[in-house]
């Protein structure tokens, strides 16, 4: 059942500092992520969670250790590990449609013109943006932009969807709306998702497992929490669910008791 899908083995990331010892951002990270699993990585700022995601995406290289996706070493970025960036990173001179089309065209060059159009429109519909498909990113709201970012990432049929604090820059109502979108999409199309967050509710609501990171330097995986909640999940009903409360408390306790961090 749990065949090795994505595994991180003895990952360490050091940043050289002039005339000093290297800064060890993350060290000794071992993780196994199953297919179609949603994993949240949570930790205080500076715990290296984004660094970890960048290494999985290949945008940044680990100093030590290996990352394997379906038994193949991850070397550099690639479309099978699609990234949803925090600031959406849509190209502002392309319309919503063209932003997704550009990605699909590049990753699936074998598609005919009609198949290409169908695929792009399917993913625009998936995030309910049919009415905005010809708009430029500058003409739509932050939440809509991030939905385009998600559609673009999913449209290239990635093996893993990497989300780097995808809703961090949005207000809480918009964030809730996007979380619903993500859960609904996940119901229909199973994806393996790794989501970086600093929001405890978001982590519990969305994920099957929550990876809690200790503080940097020398950050590593502190605890791993299984979230045993049925899907689909209802954010209102969950508030009084004992398992939800247990998970929240476990994360709160980890972040604010075991690894509390003073703000400088």
């Amino acid at each position, binding site marked *: 059942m749990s065949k090795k899908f994505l595994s991180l083995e003895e990952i360490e990331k050091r940043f050289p500092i002039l005339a000093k010892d290297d800064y060890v951002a993350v060290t000794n990270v071992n993780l196994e992520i199953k297919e179609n699993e949603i994993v949240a990585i949570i930790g205080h700022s500076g715990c290296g969670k984004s660094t970890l995601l960048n290494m999985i995406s290949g945008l940044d290289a680990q100093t030590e250790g290996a990352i394997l996706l379906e038994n193949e070493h991850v070397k550099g970025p690639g479309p099978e590990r699609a990234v949803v960036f925090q600031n959406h990173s849509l*190209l502002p001179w392309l319309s919503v449609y063209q932003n997704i089309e550009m990605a699909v065209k*590049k990753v699936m060059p074998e598609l005919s013109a009609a198949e290409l159009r169908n695929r792009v429109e399917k993913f625009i519909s998936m995030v309910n943006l049919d009415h905005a498909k010809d708009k430029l990113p500058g003409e739509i709201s932050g939440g809509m932009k991030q939905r385009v970012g998600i559609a673009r990432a999913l449209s290239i049929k990635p093996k893993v969807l990497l989300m780097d604090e995808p809703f961090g820059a949005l207000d809480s109502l918009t964030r809730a709306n996007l979380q619903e979108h993500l859960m609904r999409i996940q119901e229909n199309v199973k994806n393996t998702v790794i989501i970086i967050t600093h929001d405890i509710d978001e982590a519990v609501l969305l994920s099957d497992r929550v990876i809690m990171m200790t503080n940097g330097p020398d950050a590593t995986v502190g605890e791993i929490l299984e979230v045993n909640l049925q899907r689909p999940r209802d954010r209102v009903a969950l508030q009084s669910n004992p398992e939800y409360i247990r998970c929240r408390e476990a994360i709160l306790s980890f972040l604010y008791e075991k690894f509390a961090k003073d703000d400088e």
Partner: protein
Amino acid sequence: MNKELIKKIVLPLIVLVIIIQGWSGIAHIVEDFPTPSETYVAAFGGINSDGDEIVGVLSDPFYVNNQDDKGIFWQIVASLQRVFAGFVLAVLVGVPLGLFIGMSKNAQYAFDPFIQILKPVSPLAWLPLLLFIFQDISMTAISTIFITSIWPIIINTTLGVKNVSEDYMNVAKVLQFSPLEKIVQIILPVSVPYIFTGMRLSLGIAWLVIVAAEMLTGGIGIGFWIWDEYNNLNYNNIIIGIIVVGLIGYILDLIMGKIADYFDYTKKGRV
């Protein structure tokens, strides 16, 4: 009527009156300096101060008497041809070079000192060298324009490339774009507004340079025409020449500005 619009029309007119008054004052002090009314007659025809009926420079711009005596229209056409030839060459060389320098730190280290040293060199300093090389009026003028108007294109293109956000490049990396795809799909769209700013500056310089270059090389062209009128003691026509050069420069800049806006994605669809 719109108050702002009235101001936009009336205020320049007031300044125009002041300029003409000042001009008349200078004409009063400096011997043989053309007055505004004499210049008007020289431009549009009428009875001049000697009582002769003359045809204005601007009322008959298309005449061709012989190879060396053509109307002001043909002088302008000759100058514009050289300006565009030099300008197009500068764009063709400057944009790719700017892209290259912008994308490669090593290229920047290699080229930057020379760009900084050559950029401030006056076109008039290049002219003798280029005249010596080409021994041809047009080629000299064109190459002088090329070498003096290429710098803003290179510098602004480089600046545009440097302005490509790391986020866009990350998108390109995840999609595994080839270097050419990166240039066409990401770098060029971001740089285009900068490139056009460079081209606008460059065209302005080219138009500045052509007058000076033609004065020294001779032949045909608005620059040489002005110099020729000086030698013929037609001081009226020098002033007409200055105004014409100014107007054409202004029109060129307006056209470049419109083209630049057309290609600038930041000027489209903003709410």
